[in-house]
């Protein structure tokens, strides 16, 4: 890939994080009745704050419905944030509109979860990958063809496949096509939204290795959204754990997996089955009671208090503060020490 700098404005300050969100909220209205009046809000993302440094991979883990995908999409401005700031290279993009917004789109891209649904079955692979190039009017004619072939090659597909259709490829190959499309505009920041969840175990490793190779080659920054804690442990430098619209813990990979502080993180890690019968036979599982509460009606106090094994009266009244308990280690729990 070429290292064009078309869309990378200004001088970079190496100390500013590439992406920073501050108190980001995404609330979806619930409408009901014949007049479709708003009767409530789903608090999908309810005030999250974190940085992603240039060149690093931040893992975002949580169970379905915790708001992790919504968080990724809001950061890319695929939804209008309800509140909060999204700083790309120190510039707030949360309220950008029209042409200025279009200008920054090429700098951030997304790899989607389902490779069967995210590729248009009526378009050839070549036109799928070239679509971002056409949309942003960057390359034409032979140059464009060349770029498509270059991208196919970079993701490990035969460049001769440009005229084939998505249905001719397997799931893993389709995910490679989706990755090539995300890379077409030389983005700096990529949100990978469960990119391996729909793939078989033997194919998952191929795709993760490809993502890591491309990151090393082009110095990319990833937000890796996943519910697969062992894969996140492999790919991420730092990990954020989300529960019911909030981040409950954020730490380096070593700290988070080595000594989780938040009771939810502890339960989540202990719930992952380990492929080793000898370990499983002696391991203590923390089994959480009950289900995830509805994000339309989160509990008072700490979000996790309804399922938390160590919750006290304080937790049911007061929402714990998001605090840094050690350098680089954040947690939202009254009893994290």
């Amino acid at each position, binding site marked *: 890939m070429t290292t064009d700098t078309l869309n990378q404005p200004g001088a970079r300050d190496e100390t500013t994080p590439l992406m920073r969100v501050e108190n980001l909220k995404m609330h979806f209205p619930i409408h009901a009745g014949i007049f479709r009046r708003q009767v409530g809000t789903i608090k999908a993302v309810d005030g999250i704050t974190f940085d992603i440094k240039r060149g690093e991979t931040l893992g975002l883990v949580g169970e379905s419905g915790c708001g992790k995908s919504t968080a990724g999409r809001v950061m890319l401005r695929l939804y209008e944030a309800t509140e909060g700031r999204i700083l790309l290279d120190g510039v707030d993009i949360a309220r950008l509109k029209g042409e200025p917004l279009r200008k920054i789109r090429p700098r951030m891209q997304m790899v989607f979860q389902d490779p069967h649904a995210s590729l248009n079955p009526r378009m050839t692979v070549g036109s799928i990958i070239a679509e971002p190039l056409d949309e942003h009017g960057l390359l034409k004619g032979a140059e464009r063809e060349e770029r498509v072939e270059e991208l196919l090659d970079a993701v490990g597909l035969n460049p001769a496949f440009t005229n084939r259709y998505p249905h001719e490829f397997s799931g893993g190959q389709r995910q490679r096509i989706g990755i090539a499309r995300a890379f077409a505009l030389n983005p700096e920041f990529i949100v990978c939204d469960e990119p391996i969840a729909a793939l078989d175990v033997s194919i998952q490793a191929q795709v993760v290795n490809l993502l890591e190779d491309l990151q090393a080659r082009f110095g990319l920054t990833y937000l890796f959204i996943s*519910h697969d804690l062992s894969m996140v442990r492999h790919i991420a430098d730092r990990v954020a754990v989300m529960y019911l619209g909030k981040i409950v813990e954020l730490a380096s990979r070593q700290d988070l997996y080595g000594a989780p502080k938040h009771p939810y993180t502890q339960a*989540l890690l202990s719930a*992952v089955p380990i492929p080793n019968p000898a370990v499983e036979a002696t391991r203590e599982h923390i089994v*959480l009671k009950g289900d995830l509460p509805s994000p339309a009606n989160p509990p008072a106090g700490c979000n996790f208090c309804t399922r938390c094994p160590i919750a006290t009266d304080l937790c049911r009244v007061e929402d714990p503060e998001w605090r840094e308990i050690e350098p680089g280690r954040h947690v939202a729990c009254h009893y994290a020490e």
Partner: protein
Amino acid sequence: MTMRSVSTTGPKILEVTDLKTVFGTRDGAVHAVNGVSFHLREGELLGIVGESGSGKSVTMMSLLKLVPMPPAEITSGRVMFSARDLLSLSPGELRKVRGGEIGFIFQDPMTSLNPVFTVGFQLMEPLRKHMGLSKAEAREKAASLLALVGIPSPADRLDDFPHQFSGGMRQRVMIAIALACDPKLLIADEPTTALDVTIQAQILELVRDLRRELGMSMIWITHDLGVVAGIADRVAVMYGGLIVEHAAVEDLYANPKHPYTHALLQTLPSLDSERAEKLQSISGQPPSLDAEPTSCPFAPRCEFAFERCFRENPAIRSTNGGWAEDRVSHDVACWWDIEKGAPRDDD
């Protein structure tokens, strides 16, 4: 939890021999199951592991002729259950077995319950059909089943519809339905795949409890090697419509002998040990299954493949002297002896 001990002498409640299932499609035949044999003893939990398209679900559906026929056709095999061949039963007799003597739990709790009937109705249906209970008796039993699978205030929840339950709760209801008629055998097809890990942990805990209480015999189909490690007594690994390896669970994980199992265990990133710089991956794609295998289906992706692998399909055979009083046979279908690092020496 204690170490599991595998029964090697108990009575066999299920014995499957040389099962083959072929789907006739517009684009030609798909050979989904290509000669699968296994058995299950009373009180055992057999894990069947494989990726999508390996034939694990079709195998289990074929046992009870739950595959749509046509397009599917069971071209060979015997399924001995309670001294009868299930494949030669009449549709009426088979209906008595399904949901009666053999319970089934399906993968997706969102779609396998009927949304227009109450949970109580769906639980009582098999009780009245198979066990001939009266409405009042069935209702009582249904409530006790919901209590058994850990649903709070069970009697009240019988009148709720499936959409009023969460995913994990619906899977508990599915388990309750499968358990309704005290089945001799429970077949679970990826019962936790659609669930979140914390909910999966609840269901796994429930299954462990139920096995302790009821001594159930189970077949558990999954793609997740971690889940199987925690609950199974024995494991069969499927690839390309064949069982390529079978062993007691500790033996399989400690000492995988088929290159596919070996590679699969290597590709998994770990949660508890040293983090590898790079994940091991298995190159290539799963086989297409458009014909019965004439060579080893894994050969094109196998790092040990040699000329014979492309010529002949290896039969599965024991590598530790077969079954014995205190030993589970460790069977492998491979021409290569992974321990010696040389082709296997017989035939």
